[in-house]
């Protein structure tokens, strides 16, 4: 029995003539932070989309915690414990910030469908407390009664992290969690992610910001043109000449 919670096995995905993912094999150990880096268009987001069931791979399987995710509905994958934070914030813009977090909390409690139409929201104290708690974690507690549609982009991303955390996922997929954030917000987010790391949640993170990657990741995979060209600990990756050529060339480390 391996300790790998996520096992991506020979996943292939093409769009028309474009080979977006070619024979991807990736194993993520339980409780670790695994970063996937690579230049734009390397197939990183496609890989996450395959994991959450948004895209079906041409071949290969995604195994998670003893289940095969390939072919499952997105909501079933969520139920299995895989939650994704999107690159462009996907929130419920017509609801308040608090409600945005309560919805996924209900999903966790109620399953895929529950017809609980009689109990008033104000009587759902436990869910509300959970949501408030998570909002405090991400630093949005003071404005939780505001409309979420008019938040800044950085705030929306933090809200999304809160929406993911409230579900206590076994595996959290983060798609560039700090893109478009100010330095200050980025550091806050890193602190937040570190805090969750201590709780033992497995995370796969896609990131351009090397500062973020090297301060969080236990292992790093480098993706270029749909292939994994290197994998290892941060130090190994830093020293790998192939990686430097393909990607890290001009980056400050």
């Amino acid at each position: 029995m391996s300790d790998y919670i996520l096992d991506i096995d020979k996943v292939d995905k093409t769009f028309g003539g474009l080979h977006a993912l070619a024979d991807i094999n990736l194993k993520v150990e339980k409780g670790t932070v695994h970063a996937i880096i690579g230049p734009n268009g390397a197939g990183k987001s496609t890989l996450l989309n395959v994991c959450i069931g948004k895209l079906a791979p041409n071949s290969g399987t995604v195994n998670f915690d003893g289940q095969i995710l390939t072919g499952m509905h997105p909501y079933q994958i969520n139920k299995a414990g895989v939650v994704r934070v999107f690159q462009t914030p996907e929130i419920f813009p017509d609801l308040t910030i608090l409600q945005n977090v309560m919805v996924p909390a209900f999903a966790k409690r109620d399953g895929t469908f529950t017809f609980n139409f009689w109990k008033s929201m104000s009587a759902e104290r436990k869910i509300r407390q959970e949501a408030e708690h998570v909002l405090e974690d991400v630093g949005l507690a003071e404005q939780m009664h505001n409309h979420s549609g008019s938040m800044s982009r950085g705030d929306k991303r933090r809200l999304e992290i809160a929406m993911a955390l409230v579900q206590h996922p076994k595996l959290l997929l983060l798609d560039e969690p700090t893109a478009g954030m100010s330095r200050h917000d980025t550091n806050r987010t890193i602190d937040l992610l570190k805090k969750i790391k201590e709780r033992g949640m497995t995370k796969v993170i896609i990131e351009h910001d090397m500062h973020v990657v090297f301060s969080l990741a236990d292992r790093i995979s480098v993706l270029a043109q749909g292939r994994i060209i290197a994998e290892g600990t941060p130090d190994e990756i830093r020293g790998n000449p192939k990686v430097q050529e393909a990607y890290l060339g001009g980056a400050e480390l």
Partner: protein
Amino acid sequence: MSMATPKQDMVTMALFTAAVLSAPLWLSPIGANYPDLLQKFAIYGIFAIGFNILFGLTGYLSFGHAAFLGVGSYTAVWSFKLLSMNVIPAVIFGTLLAGLFALAIGYLSLRRSGIYFSILTLAFAQMCYNLAYSVLTPITNGETGLQLDIGDPHVLDSLFGIEYTGLPSTSLFGLQMTGYSGFYFCAVILILAFFLSLRIFRSAFGMKLRAIKSNQTRMMYTGFNTRPYLLTAFVISGMYAGLAGSLLAVTDPLAGAERMQWTASGEVVLMTILGGAGTLIGPLLGVGLIKYFENIFSALNEQTLHEVFAFLPDWIENLTVAIVNPFVGEGWHLMLGVLFMVIVIFLPGGVMEGIRRIADLPRKFRRKAEKRRQEAEHAAALRAAEEEG
């Protein structure tokens, strides 16, 4: 969109109940207190409340809800004919059968969203309408409409030894459903229907529906299977429509296919958005406004208009009548169309949004005044600084 407390909701319910039950009193100054119109308010109110649970909460625009209204009416009349003139079985069967129809139509239509959903519901409703007019004539009595006959069996009534001479009228355990008693029966059901809708709006279920409207894809990645939610909302709103349809038959035991036409579906859409889709009270306001003005305007004609405007100087009177005349009497629908456009263009949130905007005005003024004061202070400070420097 802050959440109302249970206490506030109880106040709302109490006020609503009082308002509905005392409607004959407070509507008398505007001449809307006769039972016929009051019944219409209540029945179409139920229809719109139900429609709002689907459209207002989930954003799915059905153009076929009139079909469920029609099913409710036909079922109720059949219940009167075959079972009993008592309204209770009629209402129950009407609602249930409409719910079954909604389940079937909704199950298929909800495989698509957006405009495809609208067209699917429209197609199903048109099928019901066309069939009701043609091959289903044995059930619907075609163009004449289904009505009571002298020879109807009334099985349950005969069982209890009730015999009718002549055409019977609908009753609630002996209480005839004509005039005010008919209205109060509808009113009590309206209050119950409103209460149920309030609970749905305030529940986790309601919030999930709203979240679907806001971002359906996200709901799926959040772990919800959205289709059962939508189907439940669809069936509930279909049952509301069936309930309204059977109440139409309670107050007047006659059911015609024109009740199912798609323009009738359009009317409930209009009433809902006019008042404010997605708000609790809005649809009822829409119903009140439309049914009231329909009543007033469609009764007017050129002659009555001249009487109304007789206080004006002759030439202004003639001019006014000439302008207003196309919109009254037969022209009421023209007015409706114009109203429809005006609302969608200028006030997509309906009357409720208008009220909210007006209510916000003082605050806006205050904020503006505050801002102006700050600017003035700032400018003064700058000037002072400049003079010093």
